């Protein structure tokens, strides 16, 4: 027969296995009701696991080593900077995109004085998104809007 410590260890292993099973099951559920059920049970399994873990800990059978305080500090500052960098990179990429859109709208033709086709001839290429919209909205007298 197992002793007290082995029973707790076996229970902990069982809980890990079951929780893993529910995690996979929730991830692969197609039915929302079933997925919900798996997630709720998953939570309860973790609570059982925590209880068992706690019983082991108060008996001194499970003593997770504490992390070095300096390691925590270093890790925290490293990952805080990482987040700032990701954030600023994202902002830069966003600014570039907006800039490209703006130059697209203000076509250089206007600024350099190159003649624009369109209004004078009536058959010009659309230069701006607005022009396309105008063309789409235009209806010939043969097909009037009623």
């Amino acid at each position, binding site marked *: 027969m197992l002793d*007290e410590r082995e029973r707790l260890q076996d229970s902990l292993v069982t809980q890990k296995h*079951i929780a893993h*099973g529910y995690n996979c099951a929730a991830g692969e*559920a197609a039915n929302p*009701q079933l997925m919900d059920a798996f997630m709720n049970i998953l939570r309860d399994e973790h609570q059982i696991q925590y209880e068992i873990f706690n019983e082991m800990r108060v008996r001194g059978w499970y003593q997770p080593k504490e992390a070095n305080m300096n390691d925590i500090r270093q890790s925290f500052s490293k990952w805080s900077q990482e987040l700032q960098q990701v954030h600023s990179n994202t902002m830069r990429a966003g600014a570039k995109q907006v800039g490209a859109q703006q130059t697209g709208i203000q076509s250089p033709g206007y600024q350099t004085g190159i003649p624009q086709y369109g209004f004078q001839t009536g058959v010009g290429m659309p230069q701006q998104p607005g022009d396309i919209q105008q063309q789409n909205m235009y209806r010939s007298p043969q097909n009037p809007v009623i």
Partner: protein
Amino acid sequence: MQLTEMELFHVEEQLRSEALAIAKSLAFASQSTDPRLQQVYSRAAERHRTHYETILKNVQSIAPQGQFQTQY
């Protein structure tokens, strides 16, 4: 609505695990000499039984089995 093959696979897998967990928790509750642990084990057995029933009920409501009946 029907169950997918994947869902049925997980349902069976989890029912098997829960059944084993119920049996083991009950055995541990009777083997243990620590009243506190006895309680932990019998509570765990009860919760695993609830999980088992919950899964069965969900299967029944998603893909109704007319003749199915739970017996304890």
